[in-house]
Protein backbone atom coordinates (compact mmCIF):
# COMPACT_ATOMS: atom_id res chain seq x y z
CA UNK A 1 0.00 0.00 0.00
CA UNK A 2 1.17 3.50 -0.80
CA UNK A 3 2.19 5.79 2.03
CA UNK A 4 0.03 8.56 0.64
CA UNK A 5 -3.03 7.87 -1.45
CA UNK A 6 -5.47 10.60 -2.51
CA UNK A 7 -8.53 9.98 -4.63
CA UNK A 8 -10.38 12.77 -6.37
CA UNK A 9 -9.70 15.56 -3.82
CA UNK A 10 -11.82 18.69 -4.12
CA UNK A 11 -11.48 21.82 -2.04
CA UNK A 12 -13.79 24.78 -2.37
CA UNK A 13 -13.60 27.98 -0.34
CA UNK A 14 -16.03 30.81 -0.19
CA UNK A 15 -14.33 34.19 -0.19
CA UNK A 16 -17.21 36.62 0.20
CA UNK A 17 -19.72 35.65 -2.47
CA UNK A 18 -17.09 34.09 -4.71
CA UNK A 19 -16.56 30.34 -4.71
CA UNK A 20 -12.90 29.46 -5.11
CA UNK A 21 -12.24 25.98 -6.42
CA UNK A 22 -8.75 25.44 -5.08
CA UNK A 23 -8.58 21.74 -5.87
CA UNK A 24 -10.56 20.05 -8.61
CA UNK A 25 -10.15 16.31 -8.44
CA UNK A 26 -6.57 15.47 -7.52
CA UNK A 27 -5.57 11.82 -7.31
CA UNK A 28 -1.99 11.05 -6.39
CA UNK A 29 -0.16 8.21 -4.75
CA UNK A 30 3.27 8.52 -3.17
CA UNK A 31 5.34 5.57 -2.08
CA UNK A 32 7.50 5.26 1.00
CA UNK A 33 10.99 6.71 0.47
CA UNK A 34 10.13 8.96 -2.46
CA UNK A 35 11.49 12.51 -2.80
CA UNK A 36 8.76 14.53 -4.49
CA UNK A 37 8.82 18.16 -5.59
CA UNK A 38 5.54 19.98 -6.14
CA UNK A 39 5.62 23.02 -8.41
CA UNK A 40 3.14 25.40 -9.84
CA UNK A 41 2.34 29.12 -10.01
CA UNK A 42 0.67 30.80 -7.07
CA UNK A 43 -3.03 30.08 -7.00
CA UNK A 44 -2.46 26.72 -8.63
CA UNK A 45 -3.69 24.86 -5.56
CA UNK A 46 -0.35 23.37 -4.56
CA UNK A 47 -0.42 24.97 -1.09
CA UNK A 48 -4.00 23.82 -0.48
CA UNK A 49 -2.95 20.35 -1.55
CA UNK A 50 0.00 20.39 0.82
CA UNK A 51 -2.16 21.58 3.75
CA UNK A 52 -4.51 18.70 3.17
CA UNK A 53 -1.65 16.19 2.86
CA UNK A 54 -0.17 17.66 6.06
CA UNK A 55 -3.46 17.10 7.91
CA UNK A 56 -3.70 20.82 8.62
CA UNK A 57 -6.86 21.14 6.58
CA UNK A 58 -9.56 18.83 5.24
CA UNK A 59 -10.82 18.43 1.68
CA UNK A 60 -14.39 19.31 0.72
CA UNK A 61 -14.70 15.90 -0.90
CA UNK A 62 -12.55 13.00 -1.94
CA UNK A 63 -10.53 10.51 0.02
CA UNK A 64 -7.09 10.70 1.63
CA UNK A 65 -5.37 7.67 3.16
CA UNK A 66 -2.11 8.38 5.03
CA UNK A 67 -0.11 5.32 6.07
CA UNK A 68 -3.33 3.32 6.37
CA UNK A 69 -5.24 6.04 8.25
CA UNK A 70 -8.36 7.44 6.58
CA UNK A 71 -7.70 11.11 7.24
CA UNK A 72 -10.90 12.32 5.57
CA UNK A 73 -13.08 10.50 8.05
CA UNK A 74 -11.00 11.55 11.08
CA UNK A 75 -12.06 14.62 13.05
CA UNK A 76 -9.77 17.62 12.69
CA UNK A 77 -9.22 17.60 16.47
CA UNK A 78 -7.90 14.02 16.36
CA UNK A 79 -5.42 14.86 13.64
CA UNK A 80 -2.97 16.45 16.10
CA UNK A 81 -1.74 12.99 17.02
CA UNK A 82 -1.46 11.97 13.35
CA UNK A 83 0.62 15.07 12.58
CA UNK A 84 2.78 14.37 15.60
CA UNK A 85 3.57 10.76 14.71
CA UNK A 86 3.48 10.73 10.92
CA UNK A 87 4.56 14.15 9.70
CA UNK A 88 7.42 16.55 10.17
CA UNK A 89 6.96 20.11 8.94
CA UNK A 90 9.60 22.46 7.59
CA UNK A 91 8.34 25.93 6.72
CA UNK A 92 9.67 28.78 4.63
CA UNK A 93 9.83 31.08 7.66
CA UNK A 94 11.44 28.38 9.87
CA UNK A 95 8.66 28.79 12.45
CA UNK A 96 10.77 28.20 15.51
CA UNK A 97 9.42 29.38 18.86
CA UNK A 98 11.31 32.51 19.85
CA UNK A 99 13.09 32.93 23.21
CA UNK A 100 13.38 29.15 23.34
CA UNK A 101 16.66 27.32 22.81
CA UNK A 102 17.28 25.19 19.72
CA UNK A 103 17.23 22.11 21.94
CA UNK A 104 13.85 23.00 23.46
CA UNK A 105 12.44 23.74 20.02
CA UNK A 106 13.48 20.29 18.86
CA UNK A 107 12.06 18.73 22.03
CA UNK A 108 8.67 20.36 21.53
CA UNK A 109 6.93 17.66 19.40
CA UNK A 110 7.84 15.13 22.08
CA UNK A 111 6.29 17.34 24.79
CA UNK A 112 2.99 16.79 23.04
CA UNK A 113 3.30 13.02 22.81
CA UNK A 114 4.15 12.66 26.50
CA UNK A 115 7.76 11.55 26.16
CA UNK A 116 9.69 11.72 29.44
CA UNK A 117 11.94 14.75 29.92
CA UNK A 118 15.09 12.63 29.90
CA UNK A 119 14.27 10.77 26.70
CA UNK A 120 13.20 14.05 25.09
CA UNK A 121 16.58 15.59 25.69
CA UNK A 122 18.49 12.57 24.42
CA UNK A 123 16.46 12.29 21.22
CA UNK A 124 16.57 16.03 20.58
CA UNK A 125 20.35 16.04 20.95
CA UNK A 126 20.58 13.12 18.55
CA UNK A 127 18.43 14.97 15.99
CA UNK A 128 20.54 18.11 16.36
CA UNK A 129 23.63 15.97 15.80
CA UNK A 130 22.05 14.58 12.62
CA UNK A 131 21.76 18.12 11.22
CA UNK A 132 25.22 19.07 12.51
CA UNK A 133 24.07 21.60 15.15
CA UNK A 134 24.82 19.89 18.46
CA UNK A 135 27.20 22.77 19.24
CA UNK A 136 24.33 25.25 18.96
CA UNK A 137 21.86 23.37 21.17
CA UNK A 138 21.57 26.15 23.75
CA UNK A 139 21.38 29.06 21.32
CA UNK A 140 18.19 30.99 20.86
CA UNK A 141 16.75 31.17 17.31
CA UNK A 142 17.75 34.82 16.96
CA UNK A 143 21.38 33.84 17.66
CA UNK A 144 21.41 31.48 14.68
CA UNK A 145 21.75 32.13 10.94
CA UNK A 146 18.84 31.42 8.62
CA UNK A 147 20.41 28.19 7.42
CA UNK A 148 21.04 27.07 10.99
CA UNK A 149 17.47 27.92 11.99
CA UNK A 150 16.16 25.87 9.09
CA UNK A 151 18.36 22.96 10.16
CA UNK A 152 16.91 23.23 13.69
CA UNK A 153 13.45 23.06 12.11
CA UNK A 154 14.54 19.97 10.16
CA UNK A 155 15.83 18.39 13.38
CA UNK A 156 12.42 19.12 14.93
CA UNK A 157 10.72 17.33 12.00
CA UNK A 158 12.91 14.25 12.54
CA UNK A 159 12.60 13.86 16.25
CA UNK A 160 9.37 11.87 16.40
CA UNK A 161 10.58 9.41 13.74
CA UNK A 162 7.79 10.52 11.42
CA UNK A 163 8.08 8.81 8.01
CA UNK A 164 7.17 11.96 6.05
CA UNK A 165 8.67 15.44 5.93
CA UNK A 166 6.63 18.22 4.33
CA UNK A 167 8.80 21.13 3.32
CA UNK A 168 6.97 24.26 2.19
CA UNK A 169 9.42 26.49 0.28
CA UNK A 170 12.19 25.57 2.71
CA UNK A 171 14.80 27.61 0.85
CA UNK A 172 12.58 30.61 0.17
CA UNK A 173 14.29 32.73 2.82
CA UNK A 174 17.83 31.43 2.29
CA UNK A 175 20.73 32.49 0.09
CA UNK A 176 22.20 30.09 -2.47
CA UNK A 177 24.93 28.65 -0.26
CA UNK A 178 22.56 27.96 2.62
CA UNK A 179 19.95 26.60 0.19
CA UNK A 180 22.45 24.06 -1.09
CA UNK A 181 23.32 23.06 2.49
CA UNK A 182 19.66 22.54 3.36
CA UNK A 183 18.87 20.65 0.15
CA UNK A 184 21.90 18.39 0.66
CA UNK A 185 20.56 17.65 4.10
CA UNK A 186 17.16 16.69 2.67
CA UNK A 187 18.82 14.45 0.12
CA UNK A 188 20.79 12.74 2.87
CA UNK A 189 17.67 12.22 5.01
CA UNK A 190 15.93 10.70 1.99
CA UNK A 191 18.82 8.43 1.04
CA UNK A 192 20.21 7.46 4.44
CA UNK A 193 17.14 7.52 6.69
CA UNK A 194 14.56 6.61 4.07
CA UNK A 195 12.38 9.64 4.84
CA UNK A 196 9.65 10.40 2.35
CA UNK A 197 10.12 14.06 1.46
CA UNK A 198 7.50 16.22 -0.19
CA UNK A 199 8.77 19.62 -1.16
CA UNK A 200 6.92 22.65 -2.45
CA UNK A 201 8.99 25.09 -4.43
CA UNK A 202 8.81 27.48 -7.34
CA UNK A 203 12.54 27.31 -8.06
CA UNK A 204 13.35 24.74 -10.79
CA UNK A 205 16.92 24.20 -9.55
CA UNK A 206 15.61 23.28 -6.06
CA UNK A 207 13.07 20.91 -7.63
CA UNK A 208 16.04 19.27 -9.34
CA UNK A 209 17.00 17.57 -6.06
CA UNK A 210 13.77 15.53 -6.12
CA UNK A 211 13.27 12.24 -7.91
CA UNK A 212 9.71 13.04 -8.95
CA UNK A 213 8.13 16.29 -10.05
CA UNK A 214 4.42 17.04 -9.81
CA UNK A 215 3.09 20.22 -11.38
CA UNK A 216 -0.18 21.96 -10.52
CA UNK A 217 -2.22 24.47 -12.43
CA UNK A 218 -5.73 25.77 -11.74
CA UNK A 219 -6.40 23.22 -9.01
CA UNK A 220 -5.41 20.27 -11.14
CA UNK A 221 -2.37 18.08 -11.47
CA UNK A 222 -1.07 18.75 -14.99
CA UNK A 223 2.08 16.66 -14.95
CA UNK A 224 3.66 13.95 -12.84
CA UNK A 225 7.05 12.71 -13.99
CA UNK A 226 9.62 10.44 -12.41
CA UNK A 227 13.21 11.26 -13.32
CA UNK A 228 15.58 8.55 -14.32
Amino acid at each position, binding site marked *: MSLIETTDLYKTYAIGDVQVHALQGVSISIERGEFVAVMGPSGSGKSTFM*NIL*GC*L*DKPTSGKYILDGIDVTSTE*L*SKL*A*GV*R*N*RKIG*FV*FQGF*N*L*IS*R*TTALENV*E*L*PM*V*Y*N*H*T*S*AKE*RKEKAMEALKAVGLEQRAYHMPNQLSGGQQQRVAIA*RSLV*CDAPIIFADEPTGNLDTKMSIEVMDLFTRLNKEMGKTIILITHEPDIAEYAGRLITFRDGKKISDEVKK
Partner: protein
Amino acid sequence: MIDTFLSILRISLKAIMANKMRAALTSLGIVIGVAAVITMLAVGSGTQQSMNDRFSRFGTNTLYLRQPWDLDESISSPKDITMDDVRAVRKVNGVVAAAPYISSSFKVKYGITSTSIDVLATDTDIFNIYDWQLENGRTFTERDVETYAQVAVLGATVAETIFNDVDPLGKTVIFNEIPFTVIGVMKKSGQGGFGFDMDEGTLIPYTTGKVKMDTGWNNSDRRALDRVIIRVEDINDIENTKEAISNAVRNTHKIHPLGKDDFQLDDMASWIEEAKAASKTMSILLGVIGAVSLLVGGIGVMNIMLVSVTERTREIGIRMAIGATSADIRLQFLAEAVTLSCIGGLIGVLIGVGISLFIEAHSTNIPAHLSIISIFISFGFSAATGIFFGFYPAYKASKLTPIDALRYE
Protein backbone atom coordinates in the same frame (compact mmCIF):
# COMPACT_ATOMS: atom_id res chain seq x y z
CA MET B 1 2.20 12.91 31.45
CA ILE B 2 3.70 14.78 34.42
CA ASP B 3 6.68 15.76 32.27
CA THR B 4 4.32 17.14 29.63
CA PHE B 5 2.37 19.08 32.23
CA LEU B 6 5.57 20.55 33.69
CA SER B 7 6.84 21.48 30.23
CA ILE B 8 3.60 23.26 29.39
CA LEU B 9 3.78 25.05 32.74
CA ARG B 10 7.32 26.14 31.91
CA ILE B 11 6.16 27.45 28.53
CA SER B 12 3.56 29.56 30.36
CA LEU B 13 6.10 30.89 32.85
CA LYS B 14 8.45 31.76 30.03
CA ALA B 15 5.70 33.74 28.31
CA ILE B 16 5.09 35.68 31.52
CA MET B 17 8.80 36.34 32.06
CA ALA B 18 9.09 37.61 28.48
CA ASN B 19 6.68 40.43 29.35
CA LYS B 20 7.59 41.27 32.94
CA MET B 21 6.23 44.79 32.95
CA ARG B 22 2.97 43.72 31.41
CA ALA B 23 2.64 40.83 33.85
CA ALA B 24 3.31 43.16 36.78
CA LEU B 25 0.68 45.66 35.67
CA THR B 26 -1.83 42.91 34.99
CA SER B 27 -1.42 41.28 38.36
CA LEU B 28 -1.61 44.67 40.09
CA GLY B 29 -5.40 44.49 40.01
CA ILE B 30 -5.32 41.13 41.74
CA VAL B 31 -2.64 42.36 44.17
CA ILE B 32 -4.85 45.24 45.25
CA GLY B 33 -7.93 43.03 45.41
CA VAL B 34 -6.34 40.34 47.54
CA ALA B 35 -4.54 42.80 49.81
CA ALA B 36 -7.82 44.67 50.31
CA VAL B 37 -9.73 41.48 51.06
CA ILE B 38 -7.18 40.30 53.63
CA THR B 39 -6.95 43.67 55.33
CA MET B 40 -10.69 44.09 55.43
CA LEU B 41 -11.26 40.57 56.74
CA ALA B 42 -8.66 41.23 59.44
CA VAL B 43 -10.25 44.52 60.45
CA GLY B 44 -13.70 42.93 60.30
CA SER B 45 -12.80 40.02 62.51
CA GLY B 46 -10.82 42.31 64.84
CA THR B 47 -13.82 44.58 65.26
CA GLN B 48 -16.03 41.61 65.97
CA GLN B 49 -13.55 40.22 68.45
CA SER B 50 -13.18 43.45 70.36
CA MET B 51 -16.96 43.82 70.40
CA ASN B 52 -17.32 40.31 71.81
CA ASP B 53 -14.62 41.07 74.38
CA ARG B 54 -16.46 44.13 75.58
CA PHE B 55 -19.76 42.31 75.79
CA SER B 56 -18.33 39.34 77.63
CA ARG B 57 -16.55 41.57 80.15
CA PHE B 58 -19.72 43.50 80.69
CA GLY B 59 -21.60 40.31 81.22
CA THR B 60 -24.49 39.04 79.20
CA ASN B 61 -26.50 38.25 82.27
CA THR B 62 -26.97 41.89 83.30
CA LEU B 63 -30.09 43.95 82.76
CA TYR B 64 -30.67 47.66 82.95
CA LEU B 65 -33.84 49.12 84.37
CA ARG B 66 -34.31 52.76 83.44
CA GLN B 67 -36.77 55.34 82.31
CA PRO B 68 -37.11 55.36 78.55
CA TRP B 69 -35.29 58.20 76.79
CA ASP B 70 -38.21 58.71 74.51
CA LEU B 71 -41.14 58.37 76.85
CA ASP B 72 -44.50 57.52 75.30
CA GLU B 73 -46.60 60.73 75.37
CA SER B 74 -49.73 58.81 76.32
CA ILE B 75 -48.21 58.08 79.74
CA SER B 76 -49.40 61.01 81.82
CA SER B 77 -47.45 60.68 85.05
CA PRO B 78 -44.42 58.47 84.67
CA LYS B 79 -42.89 57.31 87.94
CA ASP B 80 -39.19 57.69 88.62
CA ILE B 81 -36.96 54.68 89.19
CA THR B 82 -36.36 54.58 92.94
CA MET B 83 -35.02 52.35 95.72
CA ASP B 84 -38.54 50.89 95.95
CA ASP B 85 -37.96 49.39 92.53
CA VAL B 86 -34.54 48.08 93.60
CA ARG B 87 -36.08 46.36 96.59
CA ALA B 88 -38.93 44.94 94.50
CA VAL B 89 -36.55 43.62 91.88
CA ARG B 90 -34.36 41.93 94.50
CA LYS B 91 -37.34 39.83 95.53
CA VAL B 92 -37.94 38.54 92.00
CA ASN B 93 -37.11 34.90 91.42
CA GLY B 94 -33.98 34.45 89.31
CA VAL B 95 -32.45 37.82 90.25
CA VAL B 96 -29.02 37.46 91.87
CA ALA B 97 -28.41 41.10 92.65
CA ALA B 98 -29.78 44.54 91.91
CA ALA B 99 -27.92 47.77 92.63
CA PRO B 100 -28.88 51.43 92.37
CA TYR B 101 -26.81 53.36 89.91
CA ILE B 102 -26.31 57.09 89.90
CA SER B 103 -23.28 58.40 88.13
CA SER B 104 -21.90 61.85 87.76
CA SER B 105 -18.65 63.57 86.96
CA PHE B 106 -17.01 65.36 89.89
CA LYS B 107 -14.05 67.50 90.52
CA VAL B 108 -11.78 65.82 93.05
CA LYS B 109 -9.01 67.45 95.08
CA TYR B 110 -6.21 66.05 97.18
CA GLY B 111 -3.64 68.53 98.35
CA ILE B 112 -2.77 70.53 95.31
CA THR B 113 -3.81 67.79 92.87
CA SER B 114 -7.15 68.36 91.22
CA THR B 115 -8.83 66.31 88.54
CA SER B 116 -12.21 65.28 87.21
CA ILE B 117 -13.51 61.75 87.73
CA ASP B 118 -16.65 59.67 87.32
CA VAL B 119 -18.32 58.92 90.62
CA LEU B 120 -20.77 56.05 90.89
CA ALA B 121 -23.12 56.19 93.84
CA THR B 122 -24.40 52.71 94.54
CA ASP B 123 -24.72 50.11 97.28
CA THR B 124 -23.00 46.89 98.24
CA ASP B 125 -24.89 44.76 95.72
CA ILE B 126 -22.77 46.31 92.96
CA PHE B 127 -19.96 43.96 94.00
CA ASN B 128 -22.28 41.00 93.34
CA ILE B 129 -22.86 42.24 89.80
CA TYR B 130 -19.42 43.21 88.59
CA ASP B 131 -16.35 41.10 88.90
CA TRP B 132 -14.24 43.87 90.46
CA GLN B 133 -11.31 42.90 92.64
CA LEU B 134 -10.05 44.85 95.62
CA GLU B 135 -6.37 45.76 95.61
CA ASN B 136 -6.10 47.38 99.02
CA GLY B 137 -8.28 48.24 102.03
CA ARG B 138 -11.96 47.37 101.94
CA THR B 139 -15.15 48.06 100.05
CA PHE B 140 -18.00 49.89 101.76
CA THR B 141 -20.46 47.89 103.85
CA GLU B 142 -24.23 47.93 104.39
CA ARG B 143 -23.52 49.94 107.48
CA ASP B 144 -21.62 52.56 105.50
CA VAL B 145 -24.68 52.83 103.27
CA GLU B 146 -27.11 53.08 106.17
CA THR B 147 -24.99 55.65 108.03
CA TYR B 148 -24.36 57.90 105.08
CA ALA B 149 -20.64 57.31 105.54
CA GLN B 150 -18.36 59.67 103.64
CA VAL B 151 -16.17 56.91 102.26
CA ALA B 152 -14.86 56.27 98.78
CA VAL B 153 -13.39 53.30 96.93
CA LEU B 154 -11.04 54.49 94.21
CA GLY B 155 -10.36 52.98 90.81
CA ALA B 156 -6.76 51.96 90.08
CA THR B 157 -6.04 54.72 87.57
CA VAL B 158 -7.69 57.35 89.76
CA ALA B 159 -5.59 56.32 92.77
CA GLU B 160 -2.47 56.48 90.67
CA THR B 161 -3.29 59.90 89.27
CA ILE B 162 -4.20 61.53 92.56
CA PHE B 163 -1.82 59.86 94.98
CA ASN B 164 1.08 58.88 92.83
CA ASP B 165 3.43 57.09 95.31
CA VAL B 166 1.50 57.92 98.49
CA ASP B 167 -0.62 55.19 100.08
CA PRO B 168 -4.19 56.45 99.56
CA LEU B 169 -5.80 54.39 102.36
CA GLY B 170 -7.18 56.64 105.14
CA LYS B 171 -6.41 59.83 103.19
CA THR B 172 -9.09 62.43 102.72
CA VAL B 173 -10.07 63.57 99.26
CA ILE B 174 -12.46 66.40 98.49
CA PHE B 175 -15.33 65.84 96.08
CA ASN B 176 -17.14 69.09 95.37
CA GLU B 177 -15.98 70.56 98.71
CA ILE B 178 -17.09 67.47 100.67
CA PRO B 179 -14.43 65.33 102.36
CA PHE B 180 -14.40 61.58 101.76
CA THR B 181 -12.11 59.05 103.36
CA VAL B 182 -10.47 56.58 101.00
CA ILE B 183 -11.20 53.10 102.37
CA GLY B 184 -10.16 50.98 99.41
CA VAL B 185 -8.49 50.86 96.02
CA MET B 186 -9.65 48.47 93.28
CA LYS B 187 -7.41 46.35 91.11
CA LYS B 188 -6.95 47.44 87.54
CA SER B 189 -9.62 45.67 85.49
CA GLY B 190 -8.67 47.02 82.10
CA GLN B 191 -12.19 46.91 80.79
CA GLY B 192 -13.58 50.23 79.68
CA GLY B 193 -15.92 50.38 76.78
CA PHE B 194 -19.53 49.81 77.77
CA GLY B 195 -20.87 50.72 81.18
CA PHE B 196 -18.96 52.17 84.06
CA ASP B 197 -15.18 52.13 83.79
CA MET B 198 -14.03 51.18 87.28
CA ASP B 199 -10.38 52.00 86.58
CA GLU B 200 -11.27 55.62 85.89
CA GLY B 201 -14.00 55.95 88.52
CA THR B 202 -14.79 56.03 92.20
CA LEU B 203 -17.53 54.32 94.20
CA ILE B 204 -19.42 55.97 97.06
CA PRO B 205 -22.52 54.81 99.00
CA TYR B 206 -25.62 56.03 97.17
CA THR B 207 -27.10 57.39 100.40
CA THR B 208 -24.10 59.61 100.95
CA GLY B 209 -24.21 60.68 97.37
CA LYS B 210 -27.82 61.75 97.69
CA VAL B 211 -27.43 63.65 100.93
CA LYS B 212 -24.05 65.21 100.71
CA MET B 213 -23.35 65.89 97.14
CA ASP B 214 -24.50 69.08 95.57
CA THR B 215 -25.95 67.54 92.47
CA GLY B 216 -29.65 67.93 92.90
CA TRP B 217 -29.82 64.64 94.70
CA ASN B 218 -31.59 64.85 98.09
CA ASN B 219 -32.16 62.57 101.01
CA SER B 220 -35.50 61.26 99.93
CA ASP B 221 -35.38 57.58 99.26
CA ARG B 222 -37.87 58.06 96.51
CA ARG B 223 -35.82 60.36 94.34
CA ALA B 224 -34.83 59.12 90.94
CA LEU B 225 -31.99 56.77 90.28
CA ASP B 226 -30.28 56.85 86.89
CA ARG B 227 -30.99 53.18 86.60
CA VAL B 228 -30.92 49.88 88.36
CA ILE B 229 -28.37 47.29 87.34
CA ILE B 230 -29.66 43.76 87.70
CA ARG B 231 -27.84 40.48 87.48
CA VAL B 232 -29.89 37.43 86.64
CA GLU B 233 -29.11 33.87 87.58
CA ASP B 234 -29.68 32.05 84.32
CA ILE B 235 -29.13 33.65 80.94
CA ASN B 236 -31.27 30.98 79.28
CA ASP B 237 -34.24 31.91 81.39
CA ILE B 238 -33.74 35.63 80.82
CA GLU B 239 -37.09 36.17 79.09
CA ASN B 240 -39.08 34.81 82.04
CA THR B 241 -36.97 36.70 84.52
CA LYS B 242 -37.44 39.88 82.53
CA GLU B 243 -41.18 39.41 82.60
CA ALA B 244 -41.15 38.83 86.34
CA ILE B 245 -39.05 41.94 86.90
CA SER B 246 -41.34 43.91 84.66
CA ASN B 247 -44.39 42.79 86.63
CA ALA B 248 -42.69 43.66 89.90
CA VAL B 249 -41.87 47.17 88.68
CA ARG B 250 -45.38 47.67 87.26
CA ASN B 251 -46.65 46.73 90.67
CA THR B 252 -44.44 49.25 92.46
CA HIS B 253 -45.41 51.92 89.94
CA LYS B 254 -49.08 50.95 90.36
CA ILE B 255 -49.66 50.71 86.62
CA HIS B 256 -53.13 49.62 85.53
CA PRO B 257 -53.07 46.10 83.97
CA LEU B 258 -53.91 47.66 80.58
CA GLY B 259 -51.54 50.63 81.02
CA LYS B 260 -48.22 50.96 79.25
CA ASP B 261 -44.86 50.51 80.95
CA ASP B 262 -43.27 53.77 82.10
CA PHE B 263 -39.87 52.09 82.28
CA GLN B 264 -37.57 50.14 80.06
CA LEU B 265 -35.66 46.93 80.67
CA ASP B 266 -32.64 46.36 78.43
CA ASP B 267 -30.70 43.16 78.30
CA MET B 268 -27.27 42.67 76.77
CA ALA B 269 -28.42 39.68 74.75
CA SER B 270 -30.60 41.88 72.57
CA TRP B 271 -27.78 44.40 72.22
CA ILE B 272 -25.49 41.58 71.14
CA GLU B 273 -28.01 40.48 68.52
CA GLU B 274 -28.11 44.02 67.19
CA ALA B 275 -24.35 44.30 67.18
CA LYS B 276 -24.02 40.94 65.47
CA ALA B 277 -26.45 42.00 62.77
CA ALA B 278 -24.46 45.20 62.28
CA SER B 279 -21.18 43.34 62.01
CA LYS B 280 -22.74 40.88 59.58
CA THR B 281 -23.82 43.79 57.40
CA MET B 282 -20.28 45.10 57.56
CA SER B 283 -18.86 41.70 56.57
CA ILE B 284 -21.19 41.56 53.57
CA LEU B 285 -20.13 45.05 52.57
CA LEU B 286 -16.44 44.15 52.86
CA GLY B 287 -17.08 40.98 50.88
CA VAL B 288 -18.68 42.99 48.11
CA ILE B 289 -15.77 45.43 47.98
CA GLY B 290 -13.32 42.53 47.79
CA ALA B 291 -15.35 40.80 45.13
CA VAL B 292 -15.52 43.95 43.03
CA SER B 293 -11.77 44.51 43.22
CA LEU B 294 -11.09 40.89 42.28
CA LEU B 295 -13.60 41.20 39.44
CA VAL B 296 -11.77 44.25 38.11
CA GLY B 297 -8.45 42.42 38.49
CA GLY B 298 -9.90 39.39 36.74
CA ILE B 299 -11.08 41.47 33.81
CA GLY B 300 -7.54 42.83 33.57
CA VAL B 301 -6.18 39.29 33.40
CA MET B 302 -8.71 38.31 30.77
CA ASN B 303 -7.91 41.38 28.70
CA ILE B 304 -4.18 40.74 28.68
CA MET B 305 -4.69 37.05 27.99
CA LEU B 306 -6.77 37.90 24.92
CA VAL B 307 -3.93 40.14 23.75
CA SER B 308 -1.46 37.36 24.45
CA VAL B 309 -3.48 34.82 22.45
CA THR B 310 -3.75 37.19 19.49
CA GLU B 311 -0.05 38.05 19.58
CA ARG B 312 0.91 34.41 19.64
CA THR B 313 -1.54 33.08 17.08
CA ARG B 314 1.31 32.01 14.84
CA GLU B 315 3.04 30.26 17.71
CA ILE B 316 -0.22 28.43 18.41
CA GLY B 317 -0.27 27.36 14.75
CA ILE B 318 3.28 26.02 14.98
CA ARG B 319 2.49 24.09 18.14
CA MET B 320 -0.63 22.62 16.58
CA ALA B 321 1.25 21.65 13.41
CA ILE B 322 3.81 19.67 15.39
CA GLY B 323 1.17 17.84 17.39
CA ALA B 324 -0.28 20.00 20.19
CA THR B 325 -3.94 19.17 20.79
CA SER B 326 -6.60 21.75 21.60
CA ALA B 327 -6.37 20.61 25.22
CA ASP B 328 -2.61 21.25 25.27
CA ILE B 329 -3.10 24.79 23.96
CA ARG B 330 -5.94 25.43 26.41
CA LEU B 331 -3.81 24.20 29.30
CA GLN B 332 -0.93 26.43 28.26
CA PHE B 333 -2.99 29.63 28.28
CA LEU B 334 -5.01 28.68 31.32
CA ALA B 335 -1.77 28.00 33.20
CA GLU B 336 -0.51 31.40 32.12
CA ALA B 337 -3.64 33.16 33.40
CA VAL B 338 -3.65 31.24 36.67
CA THR B 339 0.06 31.88 37.20
CA LEU B 340 -0.46 35.59 36.56
CA SER B 341 -3.27 35.84 39.08
CA CYS B 342 -1.52 33.61 41.61
CA ILE B 343 1.58 35.81 41.46
CA GLY B 344 -0.77 38.74 42.06
CA GLY B 345 -2.47 36.78 44.83
CA LEU B 346 0.82 35.96 46.51
CA ILE B 347 2.05 39.55 46.46
CA GLY B 348 -1.41 40.64 47.58
CA VAL B 349 -1.26 38.23 50.51
CA LEU B 350 2.14 39.59 51.54
CA ILE B 351 0.95 43.19 51.35
CA GLY B 352 -2.36 42.41 53.05
CA VAL B 353 -0.65 40.52 55.87
CA GLY B 354 1.82 43.38 56.26
CA ILE B 355 -0.92 45.98 56.50
CA SER B 356 -2.98 43.83 58.89
CA LEU B 357 -0.03 43.17 61.19
CA PHE B 358 0.85 46.85 61.11
CA ILE B 359 -2.69 47.82 62.13
CA GLU B 360 -2.74 45.07 64.75
CA ALA B 361 0.50 46.36 66.27
CA HIS B 362 0.16 50.10 65.93
CA SER B 363 -3.45 51.12 65.86
CA THR B 364 -5.49 51.32 69.02
CA ASN B 365 -8.78 52.46 67.56
CA ILE B 366 -8.94 50.09 64.58
CA PRO B 367 -8.68 46.54 65.85
CA ALA B 368 -7.35 43.96 63.39
CA HIS B 369 -7.14 40.24 63.72
CA LEU B 370 -5.39 38.29 60.98
CA SER B 371 -6.65 34.77 60.47
CA ILE B 372 -4.89 32.06 58.47
CA ILE B 373 -8.21 31.11 56.91
CA SER B 374 -8.67 34.58 55.44
CA ILE B 375 -5.24 34.26 53.79
CA PHE B 376 -6.17 30.94 52.22
CA ILE B 377 -9.58 32.19 51.18
CA SER B 378 -8.26 35.27 49.44
CA PHE B 379 -5.42 33.38 47.77
CA GLY B 380 -7.93 30.75 46.67
CA PHE B 381 -10.09 33.50 45.22
CA SER B 382 -7.18 34.87 43.22
CA ALA B 383 -6.51 31.42 41.73
CA ALA B 384 -10.21 31.00 40.99
CA THR B 385 -10.22 34.42 39.33
CA GLY B 386 -7.39 33.24 37.07
CA ILE B 387 -9.26 30.09 36.09
CA PHE B 388 -12.52 31.91 35.54
CA PHE B 389 -11.17 34.84 33.55
CA GLY B 390 -8.44 32.82 31.83
CA PHE B 391 -10.82 30.23 30.53
CA TYR B 392 -12.35 32.21 27.69
CA PRO B 393 -9.01 33.36 26.17
CA ALA B 394 -7.62 29.82 26.54
CA TYR B 395 -10.73 28.38 24.94
CA LYS B 396 -10.45 30.87 22.12
CA ALA B 397 -6.82 29.86 21.52
CA SER B 398 -7.69 26.17 21.53
CA LYS B 399 -10.43 26.65 18.93
CA LEU B 400 -8.07 28.08 16.31
CA THR B 401 -7.50 25.81 13.35
CA PRO B 402 -3.83 25.07 12.67
CA ILE B 403 -4.06 26.37 9.12
CA ASP B 404 -5.60 29.74 10.08
CA ALA B 405 -3.20 30.13 12.99
CA LEU B 406 -0.16 29.40 10.81
CA ARG B 407 -1.26 31.89 8.16
CA TYR B 408 -1.79 34.64 10.76
CA GLU B 409 0.60 37.55 10.23
